[in-house]
């Protein structure tokens, strides 16, 4: 919040606060008619959102609803005559299946570890990208390149690098082939994910950093705050919305990891993710019923995660509460 600098501006600010105190009163009464200004605001809001909403709904309404509908049917494309409605039977089949839970566990592990590491690394990287005194352009560009490379190509290059004989990294870990053991291949997968998407976090966090007012930081350091205190008490609160977006979207994406696993281990040694499972059932097995069920389950899991995040971050979420409005 900026401090009004002229008396006139101060008046304007006061007016604004009056406005905001007036409005809750109007709403609390509920039945009172809306003011002209309020109606105009609503119209404008709806109008501005309309194009985006229209595009999103037009493209995804049918596919999403169709997928959900398919998940309630026993439908194998290879035997089209045996199609029938079975209600929640598919869900029972999937949720009582060992493969599903193994993949779920692996996916959860990968998600939690990579997001946690990326948050820390991303924050560090954001700080460097934002505040470095030398070579700013180079660092920022170089740091974003991993995110810009086609995932499959990067995954192949990792595969080569970690295969004994053909790559430079395999020699660092002794004799065995790291991609043939479960623990080490999971570690390699996570490393590949982290390398690839930390820039995504860092970029969002850096832009959040850019909004931290310098004078606040100066004031804090003049008041004797240490670097760590400046970081936690000044920067982090201002960055909360940016952190939420970064965490939210990164988690959603991490849960749906596919490319890196597909190229590095093809899911061998029980390193499959739930996305690979859904892909195998939907595309290889042509089992539309089970495949759609898995998609819906993945979606529900991700929705729960998103819900938790939004609740945790409270008012920093987009579209929330009047208190944030100025």
């Amino acid at each position, binding site marked *: 919040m900026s401090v009004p600098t*002229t008396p006139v501006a101060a008046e304007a600010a006061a007016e604004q606060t009056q406005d905001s105190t007036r409005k809750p009163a109007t709403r609390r009464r509920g039945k009172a008619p809306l003011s002209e200004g*309020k109606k105009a*605001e609503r119209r404008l809001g709806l109008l501005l959102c309309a194009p985006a909403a229209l595009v999103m709904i037009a493209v995804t309404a049918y596919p999403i609803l169709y997928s959900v509908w398919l998940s309630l049917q026993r439908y194998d494309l290879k035997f089209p005559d045996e199609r029938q409605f079975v209600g929640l039977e598919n869900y029972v089949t999937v949720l009582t299946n060992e493969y599903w839970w193994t993949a779920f566990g692996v996916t959860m592990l990968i998600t939690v570890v990579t997001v946690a590491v990326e948050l820390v690394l991303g924050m560090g990287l954001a700080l460097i990208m934002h505040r470095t005194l030398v070579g700013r352009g180079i660092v920022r560009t170089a740091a974003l390149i991993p995110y810009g490379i086609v995932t499959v190509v990067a995954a192949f290059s990792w595969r*080569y*690098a970690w295969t004994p004989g053909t790559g430079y990294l395999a020699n660092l870990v002794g004799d065995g082939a790291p991609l043939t053991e479960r623990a080490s291949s999971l570690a390699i997968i996570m490393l590949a994910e982290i390398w690839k998407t930390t820039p995504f976090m860092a970029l969002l966090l850096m832009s959040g950093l*850019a909004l931290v007012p310098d004078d606040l930081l100066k004031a804090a350091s003049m008041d004797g705050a240490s670097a760590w205190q400046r970081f936690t008490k000044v920067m982090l609160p201002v960055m909360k919305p940016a952190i939420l977006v970064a965490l939210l*979207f990164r988690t959603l994406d991490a849960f749906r990891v596919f490319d890196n696993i597909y190229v590095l281990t093809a899911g061998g040694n029980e390193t499959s993710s739930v996305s690979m499972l859904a892909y195998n059932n939907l595309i290889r097995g042509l089992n539309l019923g089970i495949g759609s069920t898995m998609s819906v389950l993945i979606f529900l899991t991700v929705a729960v995660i998103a819900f938790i995040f939004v609740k945790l971050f409270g008012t920093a979420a987009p579209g929330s509460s009047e208190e944030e409005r100025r």
Partner: protein
Amino acid sequence: MAALDNTARAKWRWGLLDVVVVVFALTPVLWIASLSFKTPATLTDGNFIPREWTLENYRSIFATDQFVRALINSIGIALIATAIAVVLGAMAAYAISRLDFPGKKVLVGVSLLIAMFPQVSLVSPLFDIERRLGIFDTWPGLILPYITFALPLAIYTLSAFFKQIPWDLEKAAKMDGATQAQAFRRVIAPLAAPGIFTTAILVFIFCWNDFLFAISLTSTERSRTVPVALSFFTGESQFEDPTGAISAAAVVITVPIILFVLFFQRRIVSGLTSGAVKG
């Protein structure tokens, strides 16, 4: 004297951190680049620096116009989708962060829902729709899904940024005698810039690197994008991976990303230094 030492030492410290970042980020990329310069015989010698250099891989990918066509498709589709997504997203984000209207939370929730649904299930129905509408294997056929799946991220990111902008400054500037347009241009736009450019970079990279939609919704060179073109590269035979050619292509298609980012990265931070929030 002490001040000078401090600055010099600070520079060295930051310089060192820079180097660490660059090494960590670029080593695998340089590995891909080195693969692209290796001859087929030395491809698997495990050396980081090629013993034998060749430009054959680069020559081979430009030998036919297949790859160039894919590059053109990618650039066009990604730029158009990015532009539209950022504009639509900015409009919606402005409304969400500043205005009160019914259905705001629903919109925010629904857009997140769209971002969360596994895309693998959506491709077949989408393919069906596009085939019926006749936009299968066309630019709009890819642009529309890209906009759709980029919008949630765009809306969320831009909302987060617009929330942080002190909008009263606009009023203050007008009080100080600026016109609406001037107020917007001099005060608001620079503050909105970080969010806009961040979103633009992220959306562009998403469109540029997408593989699933591109391979499912295209079938000829008319609209095939680069990641898909890579999967059409042939080796000498059915099983031989054209690793050299793919690496070369990967290097080539990373160049636009580098340019895009180089161009925009200054603007992300420049917003705040343009004088709006000085004490």
